[in-house]
């Protein structure tokens, strides 16, 4: 039995068993890659667990990701060295029906494991932040900080709300409008104004904007069917972080604080409040002031600036921002991370799969062809002032050419490099083709929307769903073709006699 460093006995035995029974699986070394990747991931996780001891600190996750990514890449190169030693297909061994698909899956798992390990630091960072701070806890603390600051500094706070008047029109004119009108305010619509003839300066807005403004308004006065006065509450939120997206307790807005604390202000127990503020400062404050922060602090004499400076709320803000960012990183970005993971894994898997089924010369010629076609297309676009949809059309054209070249393998008796290049690029582009078609469709509808304002064709379409379906379809088409067509074409092309 071969003895490998750090490999436990059961894995050695598995390795030996695979060598003698499943040579294709053994040659892929996926079992060893997964094992070593898990070891490395655990080591990275343990290290990160101790390094990320304070969730308030600025995140250094980019550096960590790059560092772990580089190590994973070295691991990838190391794996390639072992992978390229043995190849059932190129040795003309017994090549069974599912072998191409199995190989693809094994490469995907191995590369996926190596790609996945790059996400370990950010996962640990998120875990640590969640371990240190509860979701509701942060929201409650932010509310408490803002309310306490208002109570302590009531004398500094402005109490007047700012009105802003708008007239709703079905369609906005091209030029900005800022006119004055006099309207009769109906008694039953008045909340804080006396009834009668009042002059208002107003801006025009459309119904869509009205909806947004109503949703965000602190208070509003409807003067008639088209005229609205929106009142903005002064800012009483000195600590602000989007921490309540996933909590039942919500952050208090300025208006909430106004109604709960300021409107009927009562003298607080200042000593107790100050003590509590100090405790929260110790809990959250993290000094990460930058140039802009210092500038803001030193050059702004507004009430917010004075309050923030007095209670070091900018430090608390930074700390809470960091905590919130880390806590919800995965919840907010999981689909982006999944896409990054999927595409990196897919790209490397495709390259390895192509390399394993092609000659070295043809593989590198294929890469060169891909690069040259990209440059030529970019040049054509630059010269002809082409749009995004033109690039996509070019890609579809190239894909069609590659299909023709690849299928011509079925009718030849000699191995030619140009057919191999066509086949390699056909395989490489296949998973992206549905996406390209959806993007082309979107570009065309977008252009039509701008030209004809046909909103039904463009804005009502759930494009993210279509792109997701295209990605899934691309993957499925690739797998089906690997199993049915690509393996046949590679078998025929690779084994064909040379000229």
């Amino acid at each position: 039995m071969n003895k490998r460093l750090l490999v436990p006995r059961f894995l050695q035995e598995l390795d030996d068993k695979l060598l003698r029974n499943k040579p294709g699986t053994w040659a892929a070394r996926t079992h060893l890659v997964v094992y070593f990747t898990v070891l490395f991931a655990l080591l990275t996780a343990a290290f990160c667990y101790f390094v990320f001891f304070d969730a308030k600190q600025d995140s250094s996750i980019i550096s960590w990701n790059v560092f772990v990514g580089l190590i994973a890449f070295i691991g990838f190169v190391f794996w390639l060295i072992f992978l390229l030693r043995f190849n059932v297909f190129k040795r003309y061994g017994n090549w069974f029906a599912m072998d191409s698909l199995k190989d693809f899956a094994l490469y995907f798992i191995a590369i996926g494991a190596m790609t996945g390990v790059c996400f370990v630091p950010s996962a640990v960072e998120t875990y640590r932040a969640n371990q240190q701070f509860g979701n509701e806890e942060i929201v409650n603390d932010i509310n408490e900080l803002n309310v306490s600051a208002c109570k302590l500094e009531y004398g500094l706070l402005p109490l007047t709300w700012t009105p802003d008047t708008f007239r709703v029109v079905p369609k906005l004119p091209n030029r900005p409008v800022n006119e004055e009108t006099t309207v009769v305010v109906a008694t039953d619509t008045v909340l804080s104004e006396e009834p009668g003839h009042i002059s208002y300066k107003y801006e025009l807005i459309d119904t869509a904007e009205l909806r947004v403004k109503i949703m965000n308004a602190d208070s509003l006065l409807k003067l008639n069917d088209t005229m609205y006065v929106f009142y903005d509450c002064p800012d009483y939120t000195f600590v602000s972080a989007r921490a309540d997206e996933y909590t039942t307790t919500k952050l208090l807005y300025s208006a909430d604080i106004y109604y709960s604390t300021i409107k009927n202000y009562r003298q607080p127990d200042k000593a107790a409040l100050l003590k509590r503020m100090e405790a929260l400062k110790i809990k959250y404050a993290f000094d990460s002031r930058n140039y802009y922060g210092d500038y803001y602090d030193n050059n702004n004499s507004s009430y917010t600036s004075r309050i923030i400076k007095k209670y070091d709320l900018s430090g608390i803000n930074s700390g809470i921002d960091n905590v919130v960012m880390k806590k919800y990183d995965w919840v907010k970005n999981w689909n982006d991370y999944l896409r990054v993971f999927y595409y990196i894994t897919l790209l490397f898997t495709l390259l390895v799969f192509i390399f394993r089924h092609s000659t070295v010369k043809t593989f590198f010629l294929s890469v060169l062809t891909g690069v040259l076609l990209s440059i030529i297309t970019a040049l054509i676009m630059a010269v002809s002032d082409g749009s995004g949809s033109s690039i996509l059309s070019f890609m579809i054209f190239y894909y069609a050419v590659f299909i023709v070249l690849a299928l011509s393998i079925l009718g030849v008796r000699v191995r030619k490099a140009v057919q191999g290049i066509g086949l390699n690029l056909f395989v490489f582009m296949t998973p992206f083709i549905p996406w390209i078609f959806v993007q082309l469709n979107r570009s065309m509808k977008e252009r039509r929307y701008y030209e004809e304002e046909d909103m039904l064709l463009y804005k009502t379409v759930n494009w993210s769903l279509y792109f997701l379906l295209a990605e899934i379809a691309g993957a499925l088409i690739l797998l089906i073709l690997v199993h049915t067509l690509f393996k046949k074409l590679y078998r025929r092309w690779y084994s064909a006699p040379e000229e």
Partner: protein
Amino acid sequence: MHKSVAAEISSYLKHGDYSVAVRRVLDLCLDSGVDDLIKKAINWSREYHAYEKADPGKTLPRNFIDTAENLLAEATKPETGTWQNYQLVSAEKISKTYSKGNFSLKPISISINTGNVLGIVGENGNGKTTLLRCVAGQLALDNGEIKYHLLKDPDSYAIKNHIAFIPQRIPKWYGMLKDNLHFSAAIAGIYGDKNNLMVDFMLERLNLSSYAHLTWNQISSGYRTRFEIARILLQKPRLLILDEPLANLDINAQQTILTDLIFMAKGSHNPMGIMLSSQQLHEVEKVANTVIFIRQGDCLYKSNDKEGKITSNAVEFETTAARETIIDLFGEDNIELQFNGGFYTIISSQLSAQQIIGRMIEGQVPVTYFRDITYSTKRFF
């Protein structure tokens, strides 16, 4: 068949030719198809190599000979695995011209059966490798047709799976020698315990056991050739094509490898045909059923077409006697005497080789080397 081989092995043992006896016993046990017997033979072979390593040339103990006789008795019991002669590959007037360069292989026809050895000889750059690569399916033919009689409508992959080609420059392999052998056996469908057994067998058969855990850089070029043969044989090809396999081997190994290949080709475990090119004319001619001589892409001579084509006898010899002495000796006879700087060659349509050597002995000409090359391709060089 098994009984005659057993008798042959008994003779080897009796006369102390243990090395060849061990190899033949291994072959015989492999042909029996009984795994336990093969294991016993492997252990017995290991025992022999241990004796050889400890004290080369020493008389082997009695129990070693007894074990051999027991193995022979067991190996000749099974009636399975009888060897059959059938056609493997036939090529009809195949020709090849390279698009770059001006070399062309002119139409040539060959046929190979199981157990046959086809030797291709000729000077460098005359088309030996081209012919081998055409038959191996590596080069596209311009004309002619190759039939692989055991395959039904084969594609190129199936042909290459069916045929093994060992090039002159063996491509570098990576990892341990033993891993490579296990892998080769597994991709040929030999799994599990059988895989272990066959690898152990091949290591012993080609005397590679002590090199099993070495890598490419740790073994000599001769052992790399042996390893490549072991690796290829584990894949059970039906036609084995070797391009200059003897180039990296020492004199002993050349003959050993060739005879081993013949034994294995004629075995019932994997009856196969062999096609090889070489500059070692005498070694090849000794084992080949057919020898083809190629010059400038053209087949000048095929040994099994010799009837009617050879009209004179030819011998080559080495002597310290002066040329005039030899001329005087054969003065009355119509001979052609040539000297290439090393050897003399006599071509005669009247005298046979026996008569020529007899005449030289009578004339007391000192002869240090003598060979009848009447039917050898050597006369074309």
